[in-house]
């Protein structure tokens, strides 16, 4: 039923620069489902960093550039819950009462987060070829609250037969990234990510997946830093959920 569907992929700037494998994995998963995927080269960032820093004009300028990069009516699948939240829920606020409002609303209505698209639109079935493994899921706070993608993320992991989904302590608590928060308040952010990684290590998982690469920058950055510490000899990986799905459904060694 979806064989001829075409969609746009919005990679996000963090995926583009730091986790391109996540983007490629997502692309391949979607194409395998018979979806025609366009990736406009003109896309860059959703504008969230400027928006949450209070620089509305700069955020608007960047938002308009994204809107221009995705013409037509095709759905826009976004690889990060937090960026999807920005584009779906905050763009309308940003342009409220302005001449662009109507076209922005139309654009925002096309936004769908990646895991939600796989589960709710494609109802994707996954053949898990990987070995048994325990995995924890982290959703960004905005993804969880604005986009409701906690359950679609969990659902995808449940559809991978050999994955044991582990719930970590204080799962719903923020990892401390918060975009520029981690820069403006590094000590508080550090305390938060240390608690988050400790909870992840304690839950019995050997890796954490997320559909939010901002959080992943923070969490995997901390996990890697801890690698040398005496208590943390065992590596603990973090990756985008698209990458995990692609690896496991192709049976590639992990």
């Amino acid at each position, binding site marked *: 039923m979806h064989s001829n569907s075409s969609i746009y992929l919005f990679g996000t700037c963090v995926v583009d620069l730091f986790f391109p494998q996540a*983007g490629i994995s997502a692309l391949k998963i979607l194409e395998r489902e018979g979806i025609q995927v366009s990736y406009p080269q003109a896309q860059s960032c959703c504008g969230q*960093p400027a928006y949450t820093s209070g620089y509305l004009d700069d955020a608007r*300028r960047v938002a308009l550039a994204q809107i221009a990069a995705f013409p037509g009516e095709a759905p826009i699948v976004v690889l990060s819950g937090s960026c999807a939240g920005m584009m779906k829920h905050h763009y309308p606020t940003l342009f409220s009462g302005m001449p662009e409002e109507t076209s922005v609303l139309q654009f925002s209505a096309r936004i769908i987060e990646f895991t939600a698209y796989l589960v709710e639109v494609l109802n994707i079935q996954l053949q898990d070829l990987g070995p048994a493994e325990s995995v924890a899921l982290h959703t960004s706070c905005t993804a969880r*609250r604005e986009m409701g993608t906690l359950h679609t993320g969990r659902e995808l992991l449940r559809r991978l037969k050999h994955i044991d989904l582990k719930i970590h302590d204080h799962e719903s608590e*923020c990892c401390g990234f918060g*975009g520029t*928060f981690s820069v403006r308040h590094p*000590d*508080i952010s550090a305390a938060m990510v240390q608690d988050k990684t400790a909870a992840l290590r304690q839950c019995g998982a050997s890796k954490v997946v997320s559909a939010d690469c901002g959080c992943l*920058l923070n969490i995997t950055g901390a996990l890697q830093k801890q690698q040398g510490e005496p208590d943390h000899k065992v590596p603990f990986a973090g990756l985008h959920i698209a990458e995990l799905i692609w690896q496991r459904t192709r049976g590639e060694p992990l």
Partner: protein
Amino acid sequence: MATHPRRAAMKTETLHDFTSRSRAATADGEQRKKFRSAMDFLIGKRAAQFPDTAQWTALRESGQQIRQRALARLPDLLAQFEKKAQQNGMTVHWAETPQEANQIIHGILQQQQARTLIKGKSMVSEEIELNHYLQTHSIKALESDMGEFIVQLADEKPSHIIMPAIHKSKQEIATLFAAEIDDTAYTEDVDELIQIGRQALRRQFLNADAGLSGVNFAIAETGTLCLVENEGNGRLSTSVPRVHIAITGIEKMLENLADLPPLLTLLTRSATGQPITTYVNLISGPRRTDEQDGPEEVHIVLLDNGRSQAYADVQLRQTLQCIRCGACMNHCPVYTRIGGHAYGTTYPGPIGSIISPHLLGLEETRDLPSASTLCGACGDVCPVKIPIPELLLRLRVENVTRAGTKDHQEVMRGQGAKYRLSEKLAWQAWSLVNVKPALYLASRRSVTGLRHLIPSAKSWTQVRVMPKIAPQSLHELIKAHQEKKS
């Protein structure tokens, strides 16, 4: 009992030492553990009170609606309240600033020739630094709420609006009591500690010349003050002494008595996870001629202190819906890490970050709007649906916006407090890069796109490794993928 002249120590620090205070707080491992378990306890207790999502949703809808309805008519309600309260025999005072409020209260006490004031818990009296003011006028203000009593003995300030001494362990309290209360031996037994505290407090009630309390809600229709508490000291401080002075922010008005029950339900459950508190006091005037007890005079001080500034803007007005339950603090991951003192303001945590800028100006509180990851936990639990993250965002805009520019709105004192030309230019450069595909692609390797996200490698790499830029971007990988396919 010893008294402390050092009370104002925190005043001398500037409020925008938030960074150094939060650094010290996060470095204190013991304190962090204590806060974590205290907050987890409160989160659990609250959750148990709202097991049914539909019921919770309906209840907070009505809470929000009651508060918004009252605020929409605030000027009317204040006038109505004043009239009713006067008819009930109370004296109504208006104070625009903390200084005025202090002078009014001092004036009343002088008239009574009062030397001692016994206080039930009142965050507004903290807000105006009443104890300190009275001390400089040789009047002793004694806290009678157990938590307030403890922080007063320790010469500190409350660290939470509901549980002022939540930062203290029983060992610390044991040491404090042994040192500060006459004839007291060191004991870590909590029941005994409570008894020791109560005994000390009882002696004070009987001898106090006047009593002071806060107000949870003021009911315009009937001119009634509502006060909720668990320990009974609120009731004692409002009925034993000859004079009762109540102080409240002007926003605490409700239209009528029927508005009270839903809000009380939301307040106590959100705050401590209790379905109801031990005492709900409804005070509607001084002792009548046929009554056995109660004060002979009741005064109420209505304090503005920046609230009308918040009121003037429809979006920011939502801040005034607050019923001071503290749930937003309990659920805030930032508050949990740093505790209330790090904020340096009377009201800490998420509500503090949105109300303090009105009370103190954005200049003084410039770090607070950014002291949030915008995770949304506070907005989720707020029983009157204050969109706290949205208001934080709004204040961030005010913080970097100057008069005459597009997003500037004439509401706040100290707008543009965090305005820096260099930062503004940096964001302009950032937006330019993210608007022009060619620039975005070209700047990839220099990470211009993220330089402003991660300007200081040092702060990032204390606990994390620096992220590595992938050798090929997604833009490039997909291009190659598509070329291969076609």
